Every structure is written in structure tokens, then in C-alpha cells.
């Protein structure tokens, strides 16, 4: 495997310009990996001069290929950049309002549970949904709808999750109090490990009713009209 192609793949995938030092660090890290092969190990201590020579050869090749992008070195950092003549279309691309993809049903369900039961641990969400939620939690966290809220007072102090400001924005809610009442969902009993004795009752194990809604909203919840079963 040629050094210049490894460098090319790194620069092509990097989100920012990379300096020779940063590239050298990547080679060192790759050689440290558990499953590092002979090639990776042989490049562990590559010299800056070799890197620079390979980078310059690479830049030359791309110059010759005369495509719509080239490899540039600016202030000592290397980066693939597009040629200026394509700016009109790139501007149009940036201006495009690309809708984020629709949330899947599992994502919505997980989101609903977290919204009504926050702060809640992953294990508790799984207990209610009855399935592993790793993939779906990752999606909604990546979308910025859910974030770590703290840690539960349970064994291992697992992280708890809650909804974000973006969640409210996403669903057009002013605050969590605006969530339509869903008493049933709040009532599902999730087995929590007993709280440590030192914790005051009402802190770690506070019933979700008290966390999700203020007591004023509790009344609202009671009188709330029948929820639409098939809305949306």
C-alpha cells in the first residue's frame, strides 16, 4: 500500500485541514491499534520529510488530473479544495434547505418515553419498549433531540437522558409542560434498583409525575380530553 494513497484517503475524509504533525500522529495511532497489521506498524515512526515528499507528489498528481478539486497546502495544513469556477453551484447547494429525514417509528416511541419519563436511564427505556434501544438512542442523540441529563443513583451510576431545547423546537412546544397528557405512559412501573439509603427519598427516585409536570399541570392532565389514537 502506497504512502501517498493512505495520505490521500486521510485528507479526503478529514473535516479540516491536516498539518504534517497531525498526519504523523494518525500514523502513530494506527500502529498502536490492537489489530494493526504489518503496514500500519511499519509506518508508526514515519519521518516528516517522507510525509512531505509524498504530500507534494500527491498534490502534483491531482494538479495533473485537472479535476474539479485539488490538494492545497495553506499555512502548513493540507486540504482538498474545490476549484473556484464551480462556486455558482456550490452556493446553490449550501442554500438548499435539505429537510432532515423523518423520524422512524422506533425513534418516535423512544423519544416519547424519554419526553414523559425524563430523566430516565437507557435500561428503563428498554424495559418499557421491551427491546434494545442502542441504535435508536444513537439516532435521536445524533439528531440533538435527546442528551445526557445526569446520572442515576443506581448501581454503576448509569447516565440518565432527557430531551433538549431542539426537541421542543422540533415539535413546536414552548416547554415540556406543553406535552399532551399521557397519564398511562407515566404510570408504567419500571423496576428501579432500590435507592441507596443515603439519598433522600424524593431525589433520585422521585416518581416521574413530579418531574415531568408541575402539580398545576397534574390537574390539566386529569381533565385532558381523550388523546387522538390515530392522529398525525
Amino acid at each position, binding site marked *: 500500500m502506497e504512502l501517498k494513497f493512505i495520505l490521500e*484517503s486521510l485528507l*479526503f*475524509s478529514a*473535516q*479540516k485541514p491536516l498539518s504534517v504533525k497531525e498526519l504523523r500522529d494518525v500514523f502513530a495511532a494506527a500502529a498502536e491499534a490492537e489489530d494493526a497489521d504489518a503496514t500500519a506498524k511499519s509506518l508508526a515512526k514515519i519521518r516528516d520529510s517522507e510525509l512531505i515528499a509524498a504530500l507534494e507528489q500527491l498534490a502534483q498528481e491531482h494538479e495533473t488530473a485537472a479535476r474539479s478539486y485539488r490538494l492545497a497546502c495553506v499555512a502548513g495544513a493540507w486540504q*482538498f479544495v474545490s476549484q473556484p469556477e464551480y462556486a455558482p453551484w*456550490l*452556493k446553490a*447547494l*449550501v*442554500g438548499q*434547505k*435539505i*429537510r*432532515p429525514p*423523518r*423520524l422512524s*417509528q422506533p425513534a*418516535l*416511541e423512544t*423519544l*416519547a*418515553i424519554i*419526553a*414523559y419519563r425524563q430523566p430516565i436511564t437507557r435500561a428503563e427505556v428498554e424495559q*418499557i*419498549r*421491551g427491546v434494545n434501544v442502542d441504535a435508536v438512542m444513537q439516532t435521536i442523540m445524533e439528531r440533538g433531540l435527546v442528551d445526557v441529563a445526569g446520572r442515576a443513583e443506581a448501581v454503576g451510576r448509569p447516565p440518565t437522558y432527557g430531551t433538549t431545547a431542539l426537541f421542543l423546537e*422540533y*415539535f*413546536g*412546544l414552548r416547554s415540556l409542560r406543553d406535552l*399532551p397528557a*399521557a397519564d*398511562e*405512559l407515566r404510570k*408504567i412501573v419500571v423496576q428501579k434498583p432500590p435507592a441507596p439509603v443515603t439519598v433522600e427519598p424524593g431525589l433520585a427516585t422521585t416518581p416521574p409525575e413530579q418531574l415531568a409536570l408541575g402539580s398545576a399541570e397534574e390537574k390539566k392532565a386529569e381533565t385532558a380530553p381523550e*388523546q*387522538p*389514537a*390515530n*392522529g*398525525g
Partner: protein
Amino acid sequence: MAEYKVQFEVFEGPLDLLLYLIKKEEVDIYQVNLTKLATQFIEYIDLMRQFDLEIAGEFLVMASTLMYIKSRELLPVDQQVTVEGEEEGEDPRWELIRQLVEYKKFKDAATQLQTLEARQENVFPRLPGKLEFESAAPTPKPDVSIFDLLNAVNTVLRRFEKRDDARDIFEDKWTVSEKIEFILKVLAEHGSVRFAELFENAAGRSEVVCTFLALLELIRLKQLICAQGEEFGEIEIRRAENAPPAGAPVPAGPELSSEGRSDPARNDVTPEPILHQAPETGGVAEPPRQP
């Protein structure tokens, strides 16, 4: 048997086990000796029981199909009966081979998907930094509303309730030893019972499987006799006349199963082949689905 112990594997299902046995023989699926295959399959099931492994209902259904195929073959030609309505195309041997070939192809396809899956783990998309022309446009409104969220709440609730029921009915209620007691009690009261009757009130697949396992166990312990008044008629189950005292039913153990198991290769007089005609009576072949 010893060789199995070395390479004991967990199989996805009866077809998977059959493919494994065929592969070991190093013959083409089309060329496989079904009688021998049936014998090996039953031996494997016995082995699983000796290891106290839970045997899925599907394995038992397949075992009965194989026993049926085998028992047909063991009859001399002039005594072989053509089942009413069974045409050329429905030869159970042929149907089994067709199923195996099809399953094998999908298993191969799954392997190719697995290769693609592993490959994709090593493919990194180019993820350039944001282009800087002007301030980014505001994020457009997503195509989702609060009603979608509520709908999701309702779905969770419905499923949660359903799941609780399911657990009560299917997981906690039935054990094989209870079913053994139940069968013995029925026989003590009525003397005999029709095979199908035992399954009439089954609440679901797992109860059917428990009852069936209980029957097999009692037959193995020589507590029961299965009789058939006429060919392909109802199977009747009676207490064995010289049955040893009913005592506590013993779970399958190595010494018991080696003593009590009939050699499936021989066309002997144990009730097993008859019992394995069960698919014809409609008793076990299609256990009711869980809701």
C-alpha cells in the same frame, strides 16, 4: 454419538441442522439418503435432550415429518398406501428436499450480506467541512408533529399491555412435568384419550409443545401406548398394561434415553412410528400460533 459432542453447535432451526448433517456426509442435497438423515436427526434431538437443552417445537415437528417419511419407506412396496389426496407433487420427501435447497440458497445469500456488512464497516464517506459562503440558512421545519409523538405513546402502551399478557400465558404457565401429571390424570379418569383431544384447549404454541414433550416422555418411560384403530384414523392414547408405577416422572437422562429409546432404524414395534404420523391427524403439525 461421540463425534457430535465434540462439535456440538447451536442450530437456527431444523433445516439448519439437516443442512449440517448433509454437509457432514459430503453429498449433494439431491443425493442425500433421507432415511439415514432421519436417524441422525433423531439422534441429535436425543442428544440435545440429554444436555437438557430446550428443544424448540419446530425440531419436534421436523422429527415427526422425518419419521413419517422413514416409516413409509420401510414398508414393502405392495403394502405402501397412497394417502388420499396425496399427489405426485406432494411427496413429503420431495417437499423436504425442495425446502432444503431453497433454505440453503438463502443461507448462502445471508453469508454474502454478511460480507457486505463487514465491508461497509470499513467504508468511510467523505465528510467535508461546511462550505463558508454566507450564514447558514435556518433549519427547515421537520415533517413531524406532536400527533406523531402521541401516536408513538399509544403504540408503546398497547404493545406493553400485550407483552404483559403474553408473558403470563406463554412463559410462566406451562411446564412439561405439569403436562405429564395432567395426561396421567386424564388417563386415570377416562382410561383413554384421543390424541387430538390433548391439544384441543391449548392456549398457544408453547402449551402445545409442552404437551407434546410430555407425551414423548411418557411413551419413552413406557407409561403409555398409542394405538390407531384404522390407518390414518385418530390416534388413541392408553395407559400401558404393564406400566411401571407412575412414580415421579424422571427427566431425560443419558441412561434412560439409551435404554428407552428405540433404534429408529429398525421397524420395531414401539409406538413411535405411529405417533410420528401425527401430521396426518392434524394434531401437532400446525400448532396454533401465538396471537
